[in-house]
């Protein structure tokens, strides 16, 4: 459950992080969740479950693809890979995000002085 102190991510943020993570290395759902948690040092409190709707969206847009495989723990898992379209989408989204962040940062910096 979310509390007031945790903000919702903006739309598309989770997808962006998923794509970036999978770009480095194809992963299955659980590993993907752990990886994002670890990398973000638990700063972003994401319900693990919320990955799945996001993954479904990416699948539907054909930005990732999934294949059943056997994991290191000998479990049948679905491994997600970024497609070419996914790569392109990620680049575009990241550069848009950086621009947005820069804009916000500038405004905030001006406010402090």
């Amino acid at each position: 459950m979310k509390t007031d102190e945790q903000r919702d991510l903006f739309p598309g943020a989770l997808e962006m992080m998923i794509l970036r993570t999978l770009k480095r290395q194809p992963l299955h759902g659980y590993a993907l969740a752990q990886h994002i948690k670890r990398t973000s040092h638990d700063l972003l409190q994401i319900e693990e479950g919320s990955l799945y709707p996001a993954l479904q969206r990416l699948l539907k847009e054909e930005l990732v693809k999934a294949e059943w495989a056997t994991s290191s723990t000998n479990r049948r898992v679905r491994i997600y890979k970024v497609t070419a379209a996914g790569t392109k989408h990620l680049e575009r989204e990241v550069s848009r995000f950086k621009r947005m962040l820069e804009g916000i940062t500038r405004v905030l910096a001006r406010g402090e002085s």
Partner: protein
Amino acid sequence: MNWLKQLFSRRRLYGDLSAEIQAHLEEKMEELVGNGMSRKEAESAARREFGNVTLMKEESHNVWRWSFIENLLSDVRYGLRILFGNPGFSIVAILTIALGIGANTAIFSVVYAALIRPLPYSQPGRLITLTEVRPQEGQAAGANSQSWVSAYPDYLDWTRQGKSFQALAGFSGDGFVLHGAGEPEPIFAAQATVNFFSTLGVRPFLGRDFAAGEDIAAGPKVAILSYGSWIRRFGGDLHILGRSIQLDDKSVSIIGVLPRAFEFAPRGNAEIWVPLHIEKDLVTRRSLRWMPVIGRLAETSTQGQAQAEMNSITANLAAAYPQENGAIRVVLVPLRDRIVGQVQPLLLILFGAVGFVLLIACANVMSLFLVRTAGRRREFNIRAALGASRGRLISQLLAESLILAAAGGLLGLILAEWGTSLLIAAIPDTLLAFAPFLRDAHTNLAVLAFLCVAVIFTGIAFGLAPALQISRGQEGEALKEETRASAGGVRTRLRGVLVVAEIAFSLVLLIGSGLMVKSLTALLSRDPGFDAKNLLAFAVNLPPTSYPKDPDAIRFDKEFTERLRALPGIAGAASNSVVPLTGNGASIRFVIEGQPVAKGHENECNIRDVSNNYFSVMKIPLRAGRLFDDFTDSSTAPQHVIVNEAWAKQYLHGQDPIGKRIKFTYSPKENYREIVGIVGNTADAGLDSPEEPSLFLPFSQDTNSFINYVVRTGSNPESAVGEVRASLHAVDPQLVLIQPFTMDQIIAQSPSVFLRRYPSYLIGSFAALALILAMIGLYGLVSYSVSQRTRELGIRIALGAQQKDVMHLVLGEGARLTLLGVIFGLLAALGLTQLMRSLLFGVSALDPVTFASVAVVLALVAVVACCIPARRAMRTDPAAALRYE
């Protein structure tokens, strides 16, 4: 085709997802157990970190589907199941809505046909009517917005000089005896300038339009049939063109048939159109205003510009013809306003009234809905606890209310079909002929669109408030048992507001119908100035070939009336150029000896040509002087006039008129005529019209070939028609009895009576419906509150409250709501009845008697409605009530 593939692979997708989420949770648990947690702890920790599994699955599924539509479908499926599971509630709700929507749709069909649908002409908005008015007409036709006449020579000048009109056309009524299509029969016709149809932008469906030069005084030689008469009288014969028919004594060739959709309300009863065929006086005299004119505005001009131009042409004509045109003004009115002007206020009032009925129906169903949703609170709390969003709960309830509304709408559509035909059937044929657009009132796309809007409005109106209320349930309370004490509070208050509104609305409708009924009664009991009982009216038209000169007509009249008087059941027969109460008739300009007026500014009043015994047959009282008689007022005797009291009052201001002399100014040859008598006033234009100044001339000195007869019978005048017709044929077998009606029929079919009777019935029915619904609402609320307060009542009784105290308690609650409703209703009625002032007659829009008596009646009915639950409350058994919880 990607979506199609997705649609079919969805099952597999969902399966994959489930397996995947399951694997995720297991892997997590394994890891946690590996870290030393117990299996049970690990399982709940894994679920906590994962979030709501069902919701996540649901959201993941939503990615793959058209969630809006699919949610809707599932809501509808569930809603249907719920509604079928509770048929009593559903049937009551559906019937209530069906009545509301059905009544509204029926009225809308009529409103659409009359007010919204464009007239069936090309660019109807550019059609403007022109009329000449003279302020001197006083109370007569001129001051009346219905007047629509101009002089033919003026019309020709407008056509020649006007630039703001593309075309100007004129028309007039006409009538013939038709030979050559079955039995000889009098038919209504119309005559028009040859450019009439092209000005409207209408082309005949068969054959051709009139051509230049076909409008000759000796005509008509050609005719165009209306579609209806082509079908009815000529069997829709496609080879009709060129066929000859006989109109009166003239042979006329059919040159065209008008399209089926053609209608022209001002001459709505015309079966045959012929080119203008008018005699010398009507063509040349500027003082004879008789022709209605329609103009089509030029592309570049506006009505304002056209008015300015007509003003300047009129000023020039006034300078050129000071005697005839000195006081003439030209008034422009859009054709649409002239056609629907009279029914517009009536229809809008009916539309408003029926809208109230729908609001009351909504309030009632909403009240039912509130009670029912209250009973389902637990169901919704559980759904909320399982992760249903507020939006889903609202959409679920809205789906249910919209299903009910749609079912009600469907049933309402059937009611509306039936209601519309009832609405049209209730209009007298003679009036319907002049509102042909109403025949077009039926279900069409516009009506269906209205129905859909009404359904959606209704569904949301009664579904939204309960939906918002139920979805506002706090999560903390989610699974607790409903607590009795507080639960009903808000809902009962809202229902109270609804009942107050229902009572207020129905009071407004009741007052409206009370005022209408009172107007109708006042109108029907108005003394028309003559005895309308046992009176038969009809007309005879003498064709000029057989009756070329005035003495021929006088001879006919004498012989015919003598025959009539000889009939056993007939007390008297007389004639007048105008049938009273029909609103027809001519006016004339005059000067009074010794009262000089500026040239062209003479007074103008009604003129009637009456037979010598007219006043005695009609039982119109003689106030002073004498009536006409056969010896002193023969055709060769000195010319005398009789005036009515209104005339004496308006023009002589109380002086004695007898012996005064007046002169008509249309011709320099006119001499002074002496006033020999004053008679009582009569209602000429209709029962609601003011008493107009009139002059009477003896028929023998001012003869017409079209004579209106009135016959006083001993008993039912309708049964005399056969004998009267036989007498007519005995005098001249080729003559036809035109429009035989009893005076009672004429009154019943008159616009003035219709305009009160129709809304009396309709608003009356709406008000009755509204009252029933409001009382059901009140009864339902009070019963509900009694059942909610069983325990409280039980305690009160146990503590010694008497039956009458309990009764007061319950009745007090109902009385409070009723009183509030009555107060709001009276306040609303104060404003709203002002809107119906144009329909009222002989009663003020704020008539205190109506307001007070209706409020009292409503209050009494309300008390009765509350008595039933109050009796139940009185019989509360304290022991049972206290054991109840």
